[in-house]
């Protein structure tokens, strides 16, 4: 239990985990130079990666990591929502279902049978779904993992009572702002930057690697057009599907094009996936 006095007027912050790897909530601890100042501005009331000491709700702001994959979690998220003034989701899992949403395209239970010796002990849902499919969400932070600068921005905006300054446009704008030469145009590199949400600062292209879409689709993503271009530059359908089905497999703008690229394999027709994981 907390030892804080009742005179503490700091807004309370809670961090919740659903189906996820914890990487996004650890971004909060990665705010090294700002962490003490942040802890002075908000009362970190529930963050079990940091401390077992927790404070009962309600909470002023909840950060929710992970997707909904079990019946229990589908109920628990409703409790989190009802005890939170603001609910902000953090990361690709919470925003789009994450890498675990690959199960949405496979025969129900097929992944669990590969991973677990006794999948019959598991109680899971057939799909991995974003938080917004279950409860109203006030703000979504994208990325796998999220950008800690964006996390701070959301918290600072909350504290200042202003709108977060976070863009929904493409990664291309971040490449151009830092004068990175376009890998797609100058090197025919398969890059999802033109359809991917900015936020990472165009990290991968700056070291010569094509964007693999970890922030999910931008707010105006035209994935079919980019996919057609990448195919004409030599990207195979298999590679295209892998590119689109990594961290945000179930985001509609990526999902639909991936299904279009491999209609037979991805349809839930009972066939086993050919992905390396299952072979």
């Amino acid at each position: 239990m907390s030892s804080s006095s009742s005179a503490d007027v700091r807004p309370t912050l809670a961090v919740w985990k659903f189906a996820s790897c914890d990487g996004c909530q650890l971004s909060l601890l990665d705010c090294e130079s700002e962490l003490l100042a942040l802890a002075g501005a908000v009362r970190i009331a529930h963050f079990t990666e940091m401390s077992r000491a927790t404070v009962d709700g309600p909470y002023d702001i909840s950060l929710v990591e992970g997707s909904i994959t079990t019946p229990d979690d589908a109920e628990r998220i409703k409790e989190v929502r009802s005890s939170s003034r603001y609910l902000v989701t953090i990361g690709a899992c919470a925003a789009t279902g994450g890498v675990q949403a690959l199960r949405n395209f496979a025969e129900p239970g097929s992944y669990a049978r590969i991973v677990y010796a006794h999948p019959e002990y598991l109680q899971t849902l057939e799909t991995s779904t974003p938080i917004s499919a279950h409860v109203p969400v006030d703000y979504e932070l994208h990325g796998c993992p999220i950008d800690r600068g964006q996390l701070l921005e959301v918290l600072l905006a909350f504290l200042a009572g202003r709108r977060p300054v976070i863009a929904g446009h493409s990664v291309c704008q971040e490449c151009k702002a830092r004068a990175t030469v376009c890998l797609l145009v100058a090197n025919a590199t398969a890059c999802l930057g033109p359809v991917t949400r900015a936020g990472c600062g165009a990290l991968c292209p700056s070291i010569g690697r094509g964007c693999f879409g970890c922030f999910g689709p931008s707010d105006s993503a035209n994935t079919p057009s980019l996919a057609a271009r990448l195919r004409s530059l030599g990207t195979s359908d298999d590679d295209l599907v892998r590119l689109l089905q990594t961290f945000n497999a179930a985001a509609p703008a990526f999902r639909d094009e991936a299904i279009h690229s491999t209609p037979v394999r991805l349809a839930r027709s009972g066939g086993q996936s050919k992905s390396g994981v299952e072979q």
Partner: protein
Amino acid sequence: MAKSNNPSVSSKVQLGEVVVLRLDGLDSLVARLTALGFETKGPVVRDGAVVPGPITGVADLPVGVHDEQAPGSYRLTRGDDGRLFDWAVGPGSWKAEFFPPSQEVWRAVKVGDSMQFTESAPLAPLAIVGARPCETAALDVLDRVLKDGAHRDPVYADRREGAFVAVVECATPASTCFCSSMGTGPGIEGGFDLALTEIDDARGHRFVVRAGSDAGVEVLSVLAHEEALDEDLEARGRVLDQAAARMGRQLQTEGLASLLARNVEHPRWADVAERCLSCANCTLVCPTCFCSDVRDTSDLDGTLERRRVWSSCFDLEHSYLHGGAVRTSASSRYRQWMTHKLSTWWDQFDTSGCVGCGRCIAWCPVGIDITEEAAFIAASDGATPANAVSKASAP
């Protein structure tokens, strides 16, 4: 035997006089500008492209580098010819030097109930060696918006007025270039401090140089130069003629502004939208696009900052008014960009917003070609979604 130029001299050059510089003279030009306190920049090769960068001499320039450009494609090739400027413009325009992607407007620290503002340190004046004619034309277009119009931008204007610009005329336009159509190249007749033409023939590798300003006269006069002969002027003429003949594209500009203004319902806009990624690359490589956003941030330590950042009419947020964005479709955004560039820019600034550099064609990831889109609409003038079948498929 060909006449040789007079031996190198350093003598007072007259405004408009034509002289010849050799490679060491070009080296001296860069050194002289730097010695005068300029931050000297020019074209350099980085990550497979010719882009603006710091230079200290000829060795930093794209020696023997050539380019192959096409819609959505850009590649550099290397030769052993030693030529320095045998390439067309790359992705980075000089716009970014005067109108940076992110610029501090003000910065303050909250102390109690008041705010203490801090000024950022001024930049050293900029000297550019190796801008192309289309690029100085683009800066002239930007000047009308940010310097000479009703709303003078002090940061842009100060940097621009303090800058020294040595242009190098274009000898090898790319397949994406159409400056001839826009009247902005391949040669240049004004709006520079120095204008150079690279010539490499039987009489040697040299530059025909003209001074276009007092600052240009002053710098050129102290460099070892030679008197230009008739042969040098003829060689320059041949370079420009060959360049014009190599122009890869053209844009029919006559009546273009009104053509686009009366075709706002043309079905071609929806066709472009099928291809357009709304990624904004065209606007960010465009040397005249000037849209920006203002962003305020607050920090935990009480630091407040306002920055001006590049924005784009392809952003959904760009047209955000209370309640939502006005231009939600890609077709409306592409139409906004192209009609502004080629049509309403005239109403606003009495000039075209396009200089024919071709960057938007080469750096569009899916290769959308503004000249092709304009030609299509011209060939199916008056088509509407209702009569699209009969007219839009015409060309």
